[in-house]
C-alpha cells in the first residue's frame, strides 16, 4: 500500500484527462453524426452523446443524420433522377423524426454495410445518392432490368411471392381496362369489345413452364398463346424478384405484356382493324412487311411500351420518349381515332429481327 500511495499519479491523471478531452473533441469535429442546429455549440451535448458517435451507431440514428433519405425515399424508389438536390442540413426539416426508415444502399452492399463503411463514408454515400442527378424533373431513360431466375426443377417461388405477382398482374390489368373505358370513344364498338375481351381473357402462367423451361433462368415475361389459341403470359423465374425489388417497374412490365394483346399483329390475327395508325405516324414508324417468320414488329413494341408507360409509370422514361420529338406522342395519347381506323387497311409491319 505504501508503494501505491507513493506512485506519482499526477503524472498519469492529467495527461489522461487531456488526451480524453482531445479524443472527444476530435470525434465531434470529424464525425458530425447529428447536424448541429445554428447557434448550438458542440460542447452543449450531453456526455452520453459522444460514445454514440462510434461506428456501431444504429441505423435509425444514421437516418436521422440524413433526413433527405426519408423525405425523398418514395421518390427515390420511383426515380432517382427526379429528386431535388440535397438541402442544407441546417434547415428546420433536419429535426423531423425519421424513425424506422432504413438508408437505401445497393442490394449487394446492404449486408456488410456497417462493417465496410464508416459513418462518415455512409453519410457521403447518402449525400451522393441524393444529389446524383441535380437536374430537377429530368427523368432518366429506362435501362434494361432483369433478375436471373434459379432455373427449372426447384420450387424457389413461394405462394406468398406468387400472390404478390398476381396482385400486380391484376393491378396492371385493371388499370389498362380502365384506360380503355376512359377512351372508349376513340375506338369503334367492335374494336373496343375485342380489345376488352383480349385483356380480360389474358392469363398468366407461373414459372417454371414445361413448354419454355429456359424462361426459368430469366427474369422476363413472354406474351404467347396457349394450346387453345387464347392469349397467355409466361413469366420467367426471376420476375417475382422484380416485383419484390422494384414494384413500379414490375407493374410497368406486366402492363406492357398485357398491352401486347392490343398490338397491330395480334389484333390483325383476330380480324380486328388496329386503331394505332395515328400513334405510329406520330412515332414515325413506317411498316414495310406483313407478319412473317423469325421477325418482330417494332410497331408492337412501340404500342405496348407507350400504353404501359401511360398506365403504369416505371419511374423512368421509355428510351424512345427521352427524345423531345417523340415525347409529344406519349403525351397526346389516346391517338386512336375511329375515322382513321375505318379508313385505313390493317397493314402490319413486321420488321426483320436482325438489326
Amino acid at each position: 500500500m505504501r508503494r501505491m500511495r507513493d506512485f506519482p499519479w499526477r503524472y498519469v491523471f492529467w495527461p489522461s484527462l487531456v488526451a480524453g478531452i482531445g479524443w472527444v473533441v476530435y470525434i465531434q469535429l470529424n464525425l458530425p453524426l447529428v447536424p448541429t442546429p445554428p447557434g448550438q455549440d458542440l460542447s452543449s451535448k450531453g456526455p452520453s452523446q459522444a460514445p454514440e458517435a462510434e461506428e456501431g451507431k444504429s441505423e435509425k440514428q444514421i437516418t436521422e443524420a440524413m433526413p433527405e433519405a426519408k423525405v425523398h425515399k418514395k421518390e427515390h424508389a420511383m426515380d432517382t433522377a427526379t429528386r431535388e438536390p440535397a438541402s442544407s442540413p441546417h434547415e428546420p426539416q433536419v429535426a423531423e423524426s425519421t424513425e424506422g426508415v432504413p438508408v437505401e444502399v445497393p442490394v449487394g452492399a446492404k449486408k456488410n454495410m456497417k462493417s465496410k463503411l464508416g459513418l462518415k463514408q455512409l453519410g457521403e454515400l447518402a449525400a451522393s445518392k441524393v444529389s446524383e442527378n441535380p437536374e430537377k424533373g429530368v427523368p432518366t431513360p429506362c435501362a434494361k432490368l432483369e433478375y436471373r431466375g434459379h432455373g427449372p426443377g426447384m420450387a424457389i417461388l413461394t405462394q406468398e411471392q406468387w400472390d404478390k405477382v398476381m396482385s400486380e398482374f391484376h393491378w396492371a390489368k385493371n388499370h389498362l381496362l380502365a384506360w380503355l373505358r376512359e377512351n372508349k370513344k376513340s375506338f369503334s364498338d367492335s374494336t373496343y369489345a375485342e380489345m376488352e375481351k383480349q385483356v380480360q381473357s389474358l392469363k398468366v402462367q407461373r414459372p417454371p413452364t414445361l413448354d419454355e423451361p429456359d424462361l426459368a433462368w430469366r427474369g422476363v415475361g413472354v406474351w404467347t398463346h396457349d394450346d387453345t389459341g387464347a392469349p397467355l403470359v409466361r413469366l420467367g423465374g426471376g420476375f417475382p424478384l422484380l416485383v419484390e425489388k422494384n414494384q413500379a417497374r414490375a407493374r410497368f412490365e406486366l402492363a406492357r405484356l398485357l398491352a401486347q394483346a392490343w398490338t397491330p399483329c395480334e389484333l390483325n390475327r383476330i380480324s380486328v382493324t388496329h386503331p394505332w395508325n395515328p400513334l405510329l405516324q406520330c412515332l414515325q414508324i413506317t411498316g414495310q412487311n406483313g407478319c412473317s417468320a423469325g421477325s418482330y414488329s417494332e410497331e408492337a413494341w412501340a404500342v405496348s411500351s407507350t400504353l404501359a408507360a401511360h398506365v403504369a409509370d416505371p419511374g423512368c422514361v421509355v428510351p424512345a420518349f427521352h427524345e423531345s420529338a417523340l415525347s409529344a406522342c406519349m403525351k397526346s395519347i389516346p391517338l386512336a381515332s375511329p375515322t382513321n381506323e375505318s379508313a385505313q387497311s390493317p397493314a402490319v409491319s413486321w420488321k426483320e429481327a436482325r438489326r
Partner: protein
Amino acid sequence: MKFITILSFLLSCSGCLSAQNHPSLEALEQMKGVSPLVEGYIEYGGPEERWMGPSSLMIHVLAKEGTLAQITVSGPNFVEPIEMPPTPARTLASSGMSVEMARDHLKNLAGAIAQDESPFQGCLSPLRVRMIHANGAVEEKQGCRSQKGWPGLTNQIASQMMAVASSTAAPNAFSEKTPEGSTQAPDRIPAGIEPKK
C-alpha cells in the same frame, strides 16, 4: 482364370469409355456421310433498345475439341439474386456438358428442324438457330420461341445450356466474355456465315 477374364473385360470396357478420341468420332460420323455439328448459336431476339422489352439473349456452344463443350450466354445484364441456392439443375450441370452431349443436342435439333413444317403467324419473340458442321456447312432456322415443334426442343436445350453456364463450378460461364478456345461469342449471330444450300 475367372478373375483374369473379369479383369480383362473391365480393362477393355474402361478403355472404350475413357477414350475421348474425337478425331475418330468425327471420322466415324463422316463415314456415315454426315459431318458432325460442332458449333451452334441460339438467339432469342428482343426489341430495339429504344423500346421496352426483354433483352436479346445469345447462347453459343462450341463442341469442336476437348472433353467439355464451351458454352457462353451473352446478352442480358442480369441482376443476380443475393443468394443462388444449389438447385438440382445447377448441381447436375456443375460438371459441365460433354462435347458428345453438346453434339447430340445439336444433332437432335437439326433433325427437329428438318421435320418442321408448321405454319407461322408472326410473333413478338423471334428465335433463331444457327448450327455449323465440322466441314463448315451451316444450317439455320428462324421461328418463334413459343411455337410448337423445333422451338420447344430449342428451349429445352437452351435451358440445359444455361444451367451449365450458370453453374459456378463448371468451366463454362454466364458471361459476355469470349471463352478460351471458342471462335466468338457475340451478342448476335455473327454475319458472314451463310447457310449452305
